[in-house]
């Protein structure tokens, strides 16, 4: 055994290491990633690069105690070091077994999933690739946009990222699953030459073939022109149109706080308001809104598909390493306006009599009307139109009260038209309350959550009208 093993072979080698006497199971995750990035500021390139990395985790299960059911303990050892020494493979197994022994019984212990019908599909295929060449068209359009900007007094900033990660998952129960996940996004930020006005647009994509940067640049030019008339407004509650990007950020944050265990324990905004239990079943809105994550994606929105099995190197309230390889399906977190599901690892699901549900890698809010953002603007007598949100943080987990800022363009709408640009605001709002209070919801579209795009890009969200969005104070930022 010499040289560097392929990822599939690494999985097999780790699984082939004989377990210690107390070992009861093992999971191996290997992920190869390639990422190509472009970054620009002041209409010139700043930092660019191409990186390749590998990340592998060995998860060992050991029996606690010598006899009887003292439970099962688990330890995880991860590395991004290349495996050149066969001894490193055995060392990682021994280290993860030792970590498990140090840990004591795990509350999320469950038997490892068994192979299903799709087992082994695509397993021998190599890691999917990307290169700086993925930006062939984008780089040309960017150079043209820089030129247009120079002519029109517009300065461009932004970032494009294309990451392709291929994961191989193997378990001692015979599961072998492979998934290749492309994740791409581009953000364009245009400012007037005096930096006094700013506009933003973003796109989420699997491969950049569907990105038209010049069209995006055109949209931003229009938005900058709206700022020719500038108004100052005080902080108060306003009728406010949230664009899909803003809705995506707020609902992504909400989903990250939907762990069933916390709700059951009374320390979550999803805990029942008094007594025990959770808010599952509670009606939030009379609008037929459904919030879904689905590994299969959605026929109307290409490029949303995610791994159809769970792969995780850590356990927390909403995920468990014992569930590695478990098939993932569609989850409706909100169904027809009611809270419908919370996230439970399999062990917690059994403990609380709920269904296994894992936070997905995509999120869709559907069930609104057909209207576009422009239609919501056209139907608004007086209100604010936002571009996106920023610096969103939890203020009170009991109500899921979030604070944050409006960013890169707040526009005043009067009698169905944008009539000027206003100052930014700090808001304090709960996404649960937004769902409760939304008075109009439009058609869903593929969008990029501005703030959380580093972690979450595959969202399909509608624009939404709030009759009384809480703008708590004025921000002088432009």
């Amino acid at each position, binding site marked *: 055994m010499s040289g560097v093993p392929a990822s599939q072979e690494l999985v097999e080698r780790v699984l082939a290491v004989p377990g210690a006497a107390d070992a009861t199971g093992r999971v191996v995750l290997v992920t190869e990633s390639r990422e190509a*990035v472009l970054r620009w*500021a002041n209409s*010139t*390139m*700043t*930092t*660019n*690069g*191409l*990186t*390749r*990395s590998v990340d592998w985790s060995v998860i060992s299960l050991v029996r606690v105690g010598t006899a009887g059911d003292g439970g099962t303990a688990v*330890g*995880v050892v991860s*590395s*991004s070091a*290349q495996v050149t020494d066969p001894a490193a493979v055995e060392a990682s197994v021994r*280290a993860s077994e030792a*970590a*498990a022994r*140090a840990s*004591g*019984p*795990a*509350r999320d212990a469950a038997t490892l999933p068994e192979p299903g019908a799709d087992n082994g599909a695509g397993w021998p295929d190599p890691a999917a690739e990307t290169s700086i060449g993925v930006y062939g068209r984008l780089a040309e359009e960017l*150079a043209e946009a820089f030129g247009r900007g120079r002519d029109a007094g517009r300065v461009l900033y*932004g*970032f494009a990222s294309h990451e392709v990660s291929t994961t191989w998952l193997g378990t001692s129960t015979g599961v072998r699953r492979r998934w290749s996940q492309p994740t791409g996004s581009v953000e364009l*930020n245009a*400012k007037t030459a005096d930096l006094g006005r*700013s506009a933003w647009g973003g796109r989420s994509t699997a491969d950049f073939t569907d990105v038209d940067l010049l069209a995006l640049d055109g949209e931003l030019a229009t938005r900058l022109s709206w700022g020719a008339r500038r108004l100052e407004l005080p902080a108060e509650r306003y009728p406010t149109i949230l664009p899909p990007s803003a809705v995506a950020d707020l609902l992504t944050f909400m989903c990250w706080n939907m762990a069933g265990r916390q709700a059951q*324990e*009374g*320390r979550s905004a999803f805990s*029942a*308001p*008094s*007594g025990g239990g959770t808010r599952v079943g509670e009606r939030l809105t009379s609008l037929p809104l459904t919030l879904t994550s689905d590994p299969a994606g959605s026929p109307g929105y290409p490029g949303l598909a995610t791994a159809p099995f769970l792969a995780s190197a*850590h*356990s*927390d*309230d909403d995920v468990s390493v014992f569930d590695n390889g478990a098939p993932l399906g569609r989850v409706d977190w909100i169904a027809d306006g009611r809270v419908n599901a919370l996230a439970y690892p399999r062990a917690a699901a059994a403990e609380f009599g709920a269904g296994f549900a894992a936070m997905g890698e995509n999120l869709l809010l559907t069930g609104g009307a057909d209207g576009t953002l422009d239609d919501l603007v056209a139907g608004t007598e007086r209100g604010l139109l936002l571009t996106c949100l*920023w*610096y969103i*943080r939890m*203020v009170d987990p*009991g109500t899921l009260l979030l*604070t944050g*800022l409006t*960013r890169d363009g707040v526009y005043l709408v009067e009698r169905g038209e944008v009539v000027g640009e206003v100052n*930014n605001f*700090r808001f*304090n709002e709960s996404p649960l309350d937004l769902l409760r209070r939304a008075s109009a919801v439009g058609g869903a579209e593929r969008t990029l959550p501005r703030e959380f795009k*580093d972690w979450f890009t595959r969202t399909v969200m509608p624009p939404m009208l709030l009759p009384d969005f809480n703008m*708590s*104070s*004025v921000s*002088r*930022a*432009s």
Partner: protein
Amino acid sequence: MVADRQIDPEFRALPLARLADAALGRARELRAEHADLRVERILGQMLALRDGAVSSTADRGVLGLAVRVIVDGTWGFAATHELTPEAAAATAERAVQVARTLRAVNSEAVTRADEPVYAEASWVSEYEIDPWTVPTEEKIALLADWSARLLAADGVDHADAACPQVKENKFYADLAGTSTVQQRVRIEPRFTATAVDRGAGRFETMRTLAPPAGRGWEYALGTGWDFDAELAEVPELLAGKMKAPTVEPGRYDLVIDPTNLWLTIHESVGHATEYDRAIGYEAAYAGTSFATPDQLGSLRYGSELMHVTGDRTVPHGLATIGYDDDGVATTEWDLVRDGVLVGYQLDRTFAPRLGLDRSNGCAFADSPQHVPIQRMANVSLRPDPRRDTTLDELIGGVRKGIYVVGDKSWSIDMQRYNFQFTGQRFFAIENGTLAGQLRDVAYQATTTEFWGSLRGLGGPSSWLLSGALNCGKAQPGQIAAVSHGCPPALFEQVSVLNTAAEAGR
């Protein structure tokens, strides 16, 4: 500086010199004007306990190399996890190729400040017990003991305990001849107690005030923080918080404890004095800064009591290191003096733009996969230089106010004007004495008005170094650890919100 022998032999055993020769040699052949190689190993261990049971034991290691070049005035960067001379040379080639590909869309040629050459230099941070020499069982036992003590107390329904630990090794070599090898350790032992009132549908949490620190396992054992004392007092404080009255919104004089003020400094001064932000490099992401370079020497940042420094040298500081990722020897300098903006955080490309002939050493990359950018130094508020004023004296001077302790929620806008912070513990101040806890408190202000309202500073004995392990910046995102020292301080008539009212309750 600590002797070379303390750098882990496993890191020393990597073929560092051969990798440097291969990468830098290839870059020179391809006519790079500048090239540097970084080889990094980062070891991390995360231990987490939930109600006394381990929920996660995870060890991780990162190992790789990165090559950065300047070709024809344009940056190129590439990285790999393969640590062979062949891979290092190939990575240098890819970095040159990236630079050549992007030359056409680069309109500003890169120029850099000079720096002396440091040949074969080394540096190790100050710690007593390398966490990697302590058995995992022992660490878990300590966290389990903390959890048990909390859970045994009245009014505590849940206890979370955790301890992330990091050991970072960096080797840097460049075409000019600098070659450094460094090692540093950081740790954040922490716990949170939670009280739940199911009948009322309410819960409250209270976290330790212990900051993460550039220390070893001795910190968890009590060197630099008294965890035992805090574990003993938290249950009663948590019970007090459950019973506390909700705050009446309005303007209050705030005495802000260092355990809270560090984060306000981080957000409203630390990020605002990053030069890359001030000139727009982060405009599309982290944001810009109201403190623009044209106002250097004239911007009234705060009251005359305000003296803020940047440093990468303070003992146990999370941003402290010997040499930065540009090969610059680290230092300390003024950012705000007598309330006026006088400096920025810089790297070697930014120093000349500000008319300076040397960088102050703020280049940092968080992994071998990422390009170095200008990252935050330890940014700290100096204590009262004339008198060793105590916390009690600051509180004693307030007729009606709030004493704010510990950080919790934070948010600030993209130009670092408007911020909102909450905290772990709030105490009403009435006629110079503490008068019980308050809840639902958030303070909100604009940076220059807030610092302009600074009326009192604690003395040197009250100064505390706090910080964070998880400061985010740049695209692709990078995480950095940074410390902020400050005394408790008095701010007059700051706007306080009631967060329950903000939520419409």
